[in-house]
């Protein structure tokens, strides 16, 4: 199917973001379609995290437009976006350190009022991550890195997202856990959640995603099918360590 004929669920058009006078995104355009996994890869400091934070309006775009479900959302407050199904697991997980595991998960469902549905989702998250159930009364800050990543994903799922932005979910995890996290991403995606995946581990990310964008110092330098990027010699050299 021709992708450009479809309406993207999330789109950036010529977005510029800056920290003070330093422009971290220099006019980025990208599209995310309903139901797909899109990955954004790039070197350290390329602007991947900034892209995700700009999508959530935590970093305000100084130029350009952000569209979500066909609506321009530049001026929507960041705390209103989870309500609409746009949800992020940020870099470094950002678990609430002095809330328990259960309380962290509760916060994921903060804006929801359907307590029966919340309870159901809590069980589902515990089924997905049995380790969290064991540790539900433990403080978030005392979990191991891997457990924190699971908690961060679980917390995001508690909001029943339509689009999930994941910033380096494999960071600092042992290979076995990395595989588990990627399996779970595929599962979540299979349940109809659109995923935007930022990764250092470009190899795994490109295997998991349908399409990919390559970011270099604040600009998109390439976009293609993930499989094409995976076999692109330039990409292999620059990001896959060959």
């Amino acid at each position, binding site marked *: 199917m021709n992708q450009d004929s479809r309406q993207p669920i999330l789109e950036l058009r010529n977005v510029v973001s800056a920290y003070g006078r330093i422009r971290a995104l220099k006019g980025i355009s990208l599209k995310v379609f309903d139901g797909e996994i899109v990955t954004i890869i790039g070197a350290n400091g390329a602007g991947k995290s900034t892209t995700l934070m700009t999508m959530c309006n935590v970093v305000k775009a100084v130029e350009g437009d952000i569209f979500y479900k066909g609506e321009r959302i530049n001026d929507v407050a960041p*705390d209103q976006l*989870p309500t609409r199904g746009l949800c992020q697991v940020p870099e470094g997980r950002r678990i*609430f350190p002095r809330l328990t595991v259960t309380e962290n998960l509760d916060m994921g469902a903060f804006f929801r009022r359907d307590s029966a549905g919340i309870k159901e989702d809590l069980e589902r998250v515990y089924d997905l991550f049995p380790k969290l159930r064991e540790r539900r009364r433990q403080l978030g800050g005392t979990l191991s890195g891997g457990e924190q990543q699971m908690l961060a994903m679980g917390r995001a799922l508690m909001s029943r997202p339509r689009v999930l932005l994941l910033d380096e979910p494999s960071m600092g995890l042992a290979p076995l856990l990395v595989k588990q996290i990627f399996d779970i991403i595929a599962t979540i995606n299979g349940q109809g959640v659109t995923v935007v995946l930022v990764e250092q581990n470009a190899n795994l990310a490109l295997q998991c995603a349908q399409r990919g964008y390559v970011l270099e110092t604040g600009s998109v330098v390439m976009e293609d099918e993930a499989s094409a990027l995976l076999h692109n010699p330039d990409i292999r050299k620059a990001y896959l360590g060959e």
Partner: protein
Amino acid sequence: MDYFIQQLINGLTLGGVYALIALGYTMVYGIIQLINFAHGEFFAAGGYMGVIFISWLAAQGVHPYVCLGIGLVLAMLYCAMLAMAVERLAYRPLRQASRLAVLLSALGMSIFLQNGLMLTQGQYDKAYPTEITAGGFQLGGLYISYMQCLIVALTIFLLVVLNLLVFKTRIGKAMRATAQDKVMSALVGINANHIIALTFAIGAGLAAAAGIMVGLYYGTVSYSMGFVPGIKAFAAAVLGGIGNITGAMIGGLIIGMVEIFAAGYISSQYKDVFAFIILIGVLYFKPTGIMGENVDDTRV
């Protein structure tokens, strides 16, 4: 021995008052890292609103304890709204500014509110109706006033309610989440401005209750009454570990006890000094306070 127990009861009463005020400092600090120097003024405003509402109701022939109850609730609500207005006007516009700027704004607000109270209420003390404040009973060699009982009971009640609110409810969790990570709490849909306003409101409500208690205990209130107890309660918050709710309660009790016992056994002339000696001692030897950092999880 009777004297000792009498002092213990007085210390508990005063300590509870300091604890209630200290909570406002500690909660606001926990959430926006601001030492709200205007906080003592909510205590004073509460004492005044108490006089105004209670005297008016008493003049209508309402039963004294009903006057007290209604007056307390109204004064707490008034101060909660006052604090939200102060936050909105004097602190929120400076959210991105340096901490010094906000601190100066707080000092300015303190002066403004204190003078506002003097201009509107006059510079002379105002008295609570004696038919409400008078009375007490003899227990062995001890004299305990009804107001003292009321103050202790009310303090315990308010502290329990606050703990339930902060540690058990959805909004309390959101408060703690906002204190811990504002960006992340926005990413889960929490409006930080609402939570901050609520924190100010709760702190000021508790301070207002403390102001009424002091008014009932001593019989009068004055426009400048917020300053000294405000600083002592701040010392209590620092002693307990600023940002920590349990710490503020413990700190308040300790400061109250120390003050009463020092006044009783050392020198009543210098009773105000001891809170500051403790403050300096804590800042010098253990700036994180009793409950600060890693001791427990009751930071906001």
